[in-house]
C-alpha cells in the first residue's frame, strides 16, 4: 500500500500548491478552519490530528459571498459584461467524513433536480478532495448515527493515520489517481494497518426519526425545544451542509455586480412577504423549519439526512441548543400528544 510519511506532508503540499490552490486544516489565531497553503500560512500549525476544525471547507465550493456577474446600466441600456464562474484547480486536504458528506449534500442541491448551478459547478469540477479518516470520534461527534462512515470519507483520496508509519494513502477515484501520480515521489510502498475505530462518546439514535417527524409538524414539542433559541443564525453559518443563500447587488452609480451570500432561515427577513406577511412569523416556526430541513425534509427529497453529525452547531450555539437532544426528544416523545 501507498504511504505518505508524516515528515513529507509539507513537501507534498508544496508540490500540489504549484498546480492548484491547496486548502488545509490549520489553526490561525483563535480560529481553526481550512486555510489556503500560502507563504503566509505555511508556518501555522497544521491540524491533521485534531478531529474537526471550527470552520468547515464549505466556503471553498460555496463562498460566503460570491460575485456572480457584472452589471452596467447606461440610460435605458443594461448589460452583463462578465460572469465570474471560478474554475481554478483546488485541492482540499484532510477533510473528515462528516464534512465530505456535507459536500455530497451540496452536490445534490446545486447539481441535481433540473438545474445545475454554474457557479458551484465550476468550482466543484475542479476540486480534488483528500479525506482524513477518523478513528477516535470527538465528544460532540455523532456522524455514525446520521449514516456517515467515519473511516470512509466520500473523497478522491483517503488518508488513514497509521501512527509512526505515516498516512496510508488510498486513491478512490480517477481524480484521486491523477493526483496520486502527480505526487508519487512523496509516497512509498509499505504494509501497515489502520487503527480500529473507537466507539462514539455521544450516542444518538436517528433511526426512524425522519419518518416519525412526518406527523409531528404541529407537535407542542417544537415550542418547548425552540424556547432557548434566540434565532441568531450561528448554527446555520457554521453548518457544513446549510446551503441557503440570498442574492444581492452592489452598485456604484451605473455599474456594479450581483452576488450571492449565505443566508439563514433563522432570520425573519428570509421569508418575509409583501404586505408584512410571513409564513414563518416567529422564532418557533423558523427553528422548526431548520431542524425539520436537517432531519426530515432533506431526506424526503434526497434520501439521507442533511445533518452530518459534525457537532458544530452544538459548539457554537449561545443558548445551549443541541441537535442531539432534539433527535432524542423526538425519538422518545409520543408523536400524537397534543395533536
Amino acid at each position, binding site marked *: 500500500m501507498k504511504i505518505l510519511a508524516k515528515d513529507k506532508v509539507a513537501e507534498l503540499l508544496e508540490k500540489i500548491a504549484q498546480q492548484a490552490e491547496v486548502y488545509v486544516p490549520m489553526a490561525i489565531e483563535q480560529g481553526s478552519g481550512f486555510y489556503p497553503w500560502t507563504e503566509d500560512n505555511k508556518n501555522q500549525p497544521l491540524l491533521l490530528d485534531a478531529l474537526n476544525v471550527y470552520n468547515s471547507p464549505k466556503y471553498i465550493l460555496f463562498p460566503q459571498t460570491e460575485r456572480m456577474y457584472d452589471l452596467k446600466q447606461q440610460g435605458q441600456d443594461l*448589460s452583463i459584461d462578465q460572469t465570474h464562474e471560478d474554475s481554478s484547480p483546488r485541492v482540499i486536504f484532510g477533510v473528515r467524513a462528516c464534512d465530505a458528506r456535507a459536500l455530497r449534500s451540496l452536490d445534490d442541491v446545486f447539481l441535481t433536480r433540473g438545474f445545475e448551478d454554474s457557479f458551484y459547478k465550476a468550482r466543484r469540477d475542479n476540486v480534488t478532495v483528500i479525506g482524513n479518516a477518523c478513528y477516535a470520534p470527538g465528544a460532540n461527534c455523532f456522524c455514525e448515527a446520521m449514516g456517515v462512515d467515519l473511516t470512509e470519507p466520500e473523497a478522491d483520496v483517503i488518508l488513514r493515520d497509521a501512527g509512526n508509519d505515516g498516512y496510508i494513502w488510498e486513491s478512490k477515484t480517477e481524480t484521486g489517481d491523477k493526483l496520486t501520480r502527480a505526487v508519487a515521489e512523496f509516497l512509498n510502498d509499505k504494509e501497515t494497518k489502520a487503527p480500529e475505530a473507537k466507539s462514539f462518546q455521544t450516542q444518538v439514535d436517528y433511526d426512524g426519526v425522519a419518518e416519525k417527524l412526518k406527523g409531528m409538524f404541529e407537535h407542542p414539542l417544537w415550542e418547548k425545544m425552540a424556547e432557548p433559541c434566540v434565532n441568531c443564525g450561528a448554527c446555520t453559518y457554521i453548518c457544513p451542509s446549510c446551503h441557503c443563500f440570498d442574492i444581492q447587488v452592489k452598485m456604484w452609480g451605473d455599474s456594479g455586480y450581483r452576488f450571492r451570500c449565505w443566508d439563514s432561515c433563522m432570520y425573519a427577513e428570509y421569508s418575509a412577504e409583501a404586505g408584512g406577511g410571513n409564513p414563518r412569523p416567529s422564532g418557533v416556526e423558523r427553528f422548526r423549519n431548520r431542524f425539520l430541513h436537517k432531519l426530515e425534509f432533506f431526506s424526503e427529497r434526497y434520501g439521507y439526512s442533511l445533518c452530518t453529525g459534525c457537532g458544530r452547531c452544538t459548539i457554537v450555539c449561545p443558548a445551549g441548543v443541541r441537535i442531539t437532544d432534539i433527535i432524542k426528544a423526538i425519538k422518545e416523545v409520543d408523536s400524537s400528544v397534543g395533536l
Partner: protein
Amino acid sequence: MSDCNCEQPLVPHIVEVIDIVEETPDVKSFYVKSAGGGLPYQVMPGQCSMLSLPVGEGMFSCTWQEGQEYQQYAIKRVGLLTEELHQIEVGQKLGLRGPYGNGFPIAASRGKDMLFIAGGIGLAPLRSFIKHCFKNRSDYGKITIIYGSRSYNDLCFKKELFEEWPNQPDTEVHVTIDNPEEAWKGHVGFVPAYVEELAPDPAGKVSVTCGPPIMIKFALQSLQKLGFEDEQIVTTLEMRMKCGIGKCGRCNIGSQYICLDGPVFDLTQLKQLPQEW
C-alpha cells in the same frame, strides 16, 4: 428557438421592453422581447420568470402563446423593484431568466369544464391558462371565470374581462368588487362568498384558483363546501423567492420548493405538506 440560459441558470439575459400598458392604478403590463430580437424563451401557462433591474430581481408569472414573438408580464407596484419597473419606458432593457416552475395541468384538464377563480393581480397567471383554453377551445368544456378586485379601478385586463371573454362560446364571466361603487352595476362582495353564491356544480370540473393567500385559503374552503374533490382543486402558492431553481432554500414548504416543484399544486398535494402556506 428558445435560448434559455440553462448553462448559467442564475445569469439573466437581456430583454427589451417593447410596450407598456397601464392595467390599473398599480398594475402595468410589460411586453418584452430578447434584446437581439425574437422571443426570449417559450413558457407554459403558469410558469414564471425572474425579471430584473440592477436594484433587484423578482418572480413574475409569464403570459405567452404559441406564435407570439414576445412575452407579457403584468406587474403590481409593491416595493423596490416593482416601483422602479413602473417608472421605466418603452426601450428599457431588463434582465430576464427562466422559465421556472411546473405550470398549470393543461393536459390533465383536457375534456373538463373549467372553473377559474381569481383575485386582484392573481388573474395574471390564470389569464395565460384562460387564453390557452380559448385558443384550444374544443379541448375544454364550459368555461366559468369568477374574478374580483378591491374596486372597479383595480380590475385587471378589463377589455378581455368585459368584452372578449363573455363573447366566447360556452363561457360565463362573473366579476365582483369588494365594496359598492356608484357606477358599478355588478356584484359586490368577496370572491369566496361569490363562488358559494354562484355554486358551480363540481361534476366534470377542474377549478383553478389564484390570488392573495387569504383569498386562496377561503376560496379553497368554499370549493370544498361545494363538493369539489381535492384533485379537482388546483391553486398556486407564492413565497419569497431568490434563485427560482430550488437551490437557495427560501421557498420551501416541507420538502417541496415552490419555485421548482410548484407554484401550481392541487389540494391532494397540499394536504401532504405542512400547513405553512
